[in-house]
């Protein structure tokens, strides 16, 4: 299967067979949009291979991987990427763990407060988290969590948690109840049932939640930008601004090379989950309308 097709959810590439009358017009329209969307991406790739890259799209006179070798140093690439990995990885683990636990009673039991709880979760999924960053900053200064990677990870985990719970609950609803009732009959407790029966059965669902959470955090700029101050703790999403720091002379080639290195993990992870995201629930989990 060509990689481009794998990137797309099923609904996109398996369109119905139809009268071909309008096909050339539709193709032309789509191609025009494709070109407009491609230009910045083409610039990114070309300038990363061009040691004298400018702001314009142009073919490098002598393509070389020099930009990549120039940015592959501890200070520019490895430390920020490691920071990103520590912050986002830790936060993802925490989010997935809490979401799996929370989804279990919400999916399995009915109670007077499960519906209000779910509605509150759905409500907070939509809140503009950007708006609370100023009070979060003030709060973090007071409780000494400012400029710590674990503090940043804790906030990222909390911010992503409502959506993760919502997704996880939807996936868990898909696991038939009969199987865990069998486990109960055999004397299993709820942690055992959750760990041994339900989570293995919804393995791909858990993977989607984890990867999606990680992608969201990896690309997040505002949260670490506000909560981390010392340069050696900054993740890649913020350290990228160092390139702009050196007055006037931005090394566009190196900036492009770094952007590609920084973007690759999320692109790869997205490809891994894209089929599933497009299939069952067209991303959003909440988006069933």
């Amino acid at each position, binding site marked *: 299967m060509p990689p481009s097709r794998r990137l797309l959810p099923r609904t996109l590439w398996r*369109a119905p067979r139809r009268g071909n009358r309008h096909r050339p017009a539709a193709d032309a*329209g789509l191609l025009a949009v494709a070109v407009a969307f491609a230009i910045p991406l083409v610039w990114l790739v070309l300038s990363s291979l061009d040691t004298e890259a400018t702001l314009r799209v142009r073919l490098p006179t002598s393509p070389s991987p020099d930009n990549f070798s120039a940015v592959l140093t501890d200070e520019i690439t490895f430390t920020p990427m490691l920071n990103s990995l520590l912050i986002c990885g830790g936060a993802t683990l925490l989010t997935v763990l809490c979401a799996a636990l929370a989804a279990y009673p919400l999916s399995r039991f009915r109670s007077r407060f499960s519906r209000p709880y779910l509605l509150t979760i759905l409500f907070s999924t939509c809140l503009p988290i*950007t*708006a609370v960053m100023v009070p979060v900053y003030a709060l973090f200064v007071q409780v000494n969590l400012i400029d710590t990677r674990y503090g940043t990870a804790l906030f990222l985990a909390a911010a992503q948690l409502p959506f993760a719970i919502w997704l996880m609950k939807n996936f868990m609803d898909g696991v038939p109840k009969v199987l865990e009732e069998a486990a109960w009959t055999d004397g299993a407790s709820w942690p055992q049932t959750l760990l041994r029966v339900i989570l293995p059965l919804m393995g791909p669902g858990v993977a989607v939640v984890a990867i999606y959470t990680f992608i969201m955090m990896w690309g997040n700029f505002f949260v670490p930008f506000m909560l981390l101050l010392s340069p050696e703790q900054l993740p890649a999403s913020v350290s990228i601004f160092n390139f702009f720091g050196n007055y006037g002379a931005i090394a566009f080639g190196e*900036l492009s090379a770094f952007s590609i290195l920084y973007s690759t993990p999320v692109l790869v992870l997205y490809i891994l989950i894209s089929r599933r995201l497009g299939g069952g629930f067209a991303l959003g989990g909440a988006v069933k309308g």
Partner: protein
Amino acid sequence: MTGAVAGKAAARARTPGAPSPGRVLTRLLRWSPLAPATVLLLLFLVGPIGYCVFIAFTDTQLTGQESASFVGLANFRHAFGDPAFRNAVVLTLVFTVLSSVLGQNTLGLALAGLMRRASRPVRSLTGALVICAWVLPEIVAGFLLYTFFERRGTLNALLEWLHLPAQNWLFTLPVLAVSFANVWRGTAFSMLIYSAALAEIPQEVTESAEVDGAGGVRRLWHITLPMIRRSIGTNLMLNTLQTLSVFGLIWAMTRGGPGNRSQTLPVFMYDQAFLKSLIGYGTAVALLLLLVGALFSAVYLRLMREEV
């Protein structure tokens, strides 16, 4: 086993009166897995929102002040009288309507519609590019579109090539540039939602309309749009909420400038709270933004009500 069965019986019976201590314990145990998530949410999400409400009514500053005092509605009165705030509100409106309502929503629908008729390679290529722009980290997208719109950038190169007048886009039309950037970055989401929605329209309906002689525009207006109206509502709501909180994209492209001509509410909030050290005022702005977001969320929740 007995516990589970007893618990289930208890849940089903719903007998009036006080439940026995054993039952309460079972229930607590059963709902205990909610605890870690709830604690995390209370500490890091509900807490800050509550704190937000508190400091929005004080004159807290970043430095040089021992204790903040309660100033009531002064921050909000200041905001509504502040031309810079009104400017930010107008720019946020322009940015949201241009990029989310007109841009992402319409382009997303158009793409989804065209994809149903286009040939497979074109469909795959376009879809992959649009989604790629969406998956890229926000800051990378901002940087890419900065180079596209910059005075010496690709857009002007294209215009010169076409013998059209070049412009310093980020200076003359900064809002348009960041709106376009948001369309570039965010259209994939609408495209995905609409292609799922269009796929659910039964083919017989469209076909019979076609047989009855309804043209493309009439089919779109009288059949397609009414049938996907729920998706349109959801999509508009989510796009708008997303766009309301865009910060990194604008920060990377213009930093709210030149002057304050692309300073939307999040950028204004950041500017007041940190560059001008007025945490109280910045938070009041944040609270207003949060209220608008909450309003949209509530409407969205109403739309979703039957699904939960």
